[in-house]
């Protein structure tokens, strides 16, 4: 009787704890949606920020966020996956790899502002990359690198050892085993980790402010495609920029109430972007895992 009583108590405590988390998020989200939704129209996405709240939009912010994410993914994915594969499939297990492992775990816990300070000194000044999309992308790539590495390692670890042995027994090299087995079978987990890392990066504000993103910007970076050869241009990576959370931060610091609604609307868009990325991750994992059974 007493044991069953304990069971019920624990279940209740659990439900309450869960509800606190869910309801807090819901309350925030609904509140933001109520304030912001009236502002959400086509112009909101196609207008630059403005001194008049009713005409202000998030064009430079969402374009900036998207471009920064492209740079982030470009650096974080190959580096993170390569590091994860190396640690799982190549590195001998000794004190050096233990040390690296502890380091990576700790890196995941470093406050993002610290990455911002590092990036300011290293990318912006030392490498002379300036307050550019490239600097921001590199900073966020560093920030999510531990997430990608850990996700890669977890995904690789779930591959049964008999699959590796089967490959090696046929005379495969390590690289052939990685190329034909390890990467294809772990791609679902790796992609999930990448997207979750990206979803975290897209909401980061502190390190981006630290490296000097503009808070008010009324132009877009140069287009990545040109009319004349070679048709592609990388000029945009050196362009000044702003991102979604900074645009929000800028608006919330204004005294006029109308700007608060703009901030709520931008926040709503940002949350939807993040949720969409997470949903995509779940869908992708489901789809890729369907064809893999041991």
């Amino acid at each position: 009787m007493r044991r069953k009583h304990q069971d019920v108590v624990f279940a209740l405590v659990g439900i309450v704890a869960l509800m606190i988390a869910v309801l807090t998020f819901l309350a925030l989200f609904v509140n933001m949606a109520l304030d912001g939704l009236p502002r959400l129209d086509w112009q909101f996405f196609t207008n630059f920020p403005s001194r008049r709240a009713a005409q202000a939009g998030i064009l430079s912010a969402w374009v900036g966020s998207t471009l920064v994410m492209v740079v982030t993914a470009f650096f974080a994915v190959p580096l993170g996956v390569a590091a994860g594969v190396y640690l799982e499939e190549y590195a001998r297990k000794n004190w050096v790899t233990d040390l690296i492992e502890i380091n990576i775990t700790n890196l995941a816990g470093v406050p993002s502002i610290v990455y911002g300070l590092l990036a300011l000194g290293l990318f912006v000044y030392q490498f002379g990359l300036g307050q550019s999309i490239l600097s921001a992308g590199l900073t966020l790539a560093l920030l999510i690198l531990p997430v990608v590495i850990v996700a890669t390692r977890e995904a690789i670890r779930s591959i049964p050892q008999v699959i590796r042995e089967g490959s090696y027994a046929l005379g495969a090299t390590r690289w052939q085993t990685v190329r034909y087995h390890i990467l294809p079978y772990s791609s679902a987990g790796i992609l999930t980790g990448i997207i979750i890392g990206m979803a975290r990066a897209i909401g980061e504000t502190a390190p981006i402010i630290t490296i000097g993103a503009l808070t008010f910007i009324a132009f877009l970076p140069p287009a990545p495609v040109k009319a004349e050869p070679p048709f592609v241009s990388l000029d945009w990576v050196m362009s000044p920029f702003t991102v979604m959370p900074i645009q929000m931060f800028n608006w919330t610091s204004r005294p006029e109430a109308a700007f608060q609604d703009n901030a709520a609307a931008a926040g709503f868009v940002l949350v939807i972007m993040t949720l969409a990325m997470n949903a995509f991750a779940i869908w992708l994992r489901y789809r890729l895992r369907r064809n893999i059974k041991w």
Partner: protein
Amino acid sequence: MAALPSATQHQVVEALPATKAEARGLSFYYGDFQALKGISMPVHERQVTALIGPSGCGKSTFLRCFNRMHDLYPGNRYEGEIILQPDNTNLLAGSLDPIDVRMRIGMVFQKPNPFPKTVFENVAYGLRVRGEGSRRTIEEKVEQALHDAALWDEVKDRLRQPAYNLSGGQQQRLCIARALATDPELLLFDEPTSALDPIATASIEELMHDLKKRVTILIVTHNMQQAARVSDFTAYMYLGELVEFGVTDEVFIKPQKKQTEDYITGRFG
């Protein structure tokens, strides 16, 4: 198999087939633990040699020395030699790349371990690993290997389907086909039927009987009846040592050592 009269037995012993591989004073260590203690025995060409013994006696460890599987894990160490004929190569030589060893020696595992790819890709993998680029050659060799593994008729219409759709017995024959596709000189079987039902087991045993016409087979088995059924030579191991090695009929009918007799008759083990 029926008991042979002793005169015939001697003839068998005298007319021993050629040696394909030979372990000479082979010891093996997992870190500080010595798992094999100075094993010396031959593996005869185009014969089936069975390794029997109680769990933990080192028979799987011994088998996995032949394709240097232990090299995949740190802290493992070999002593002694395994000489592979006809070129007198010491498989355990530090200067020899384990990949070159595995190019010549195939392996089939305890639990069927098809790759999560199509039936065709499973068998083609060994060829792709060797850099075979010709589609025609790959298709021919895959078909041949599936014929050799007595699987072609069952899978010829589902080559592009995932291998895990096959039954357990079919999966194991697929793994045998995968190993055969690269024409191994020696095929290692590590308890290949322990995860299979009796009917699938019978088909694998029958297959082994056919295969020994062209490839040397070394098999670890927990099942003594299986050793008696499929093998020409049997080695009994206990606690990392080779207790007895001989023609299967002799080992089973007139074991030289009391220990072997006790194990075979089920008094221990």
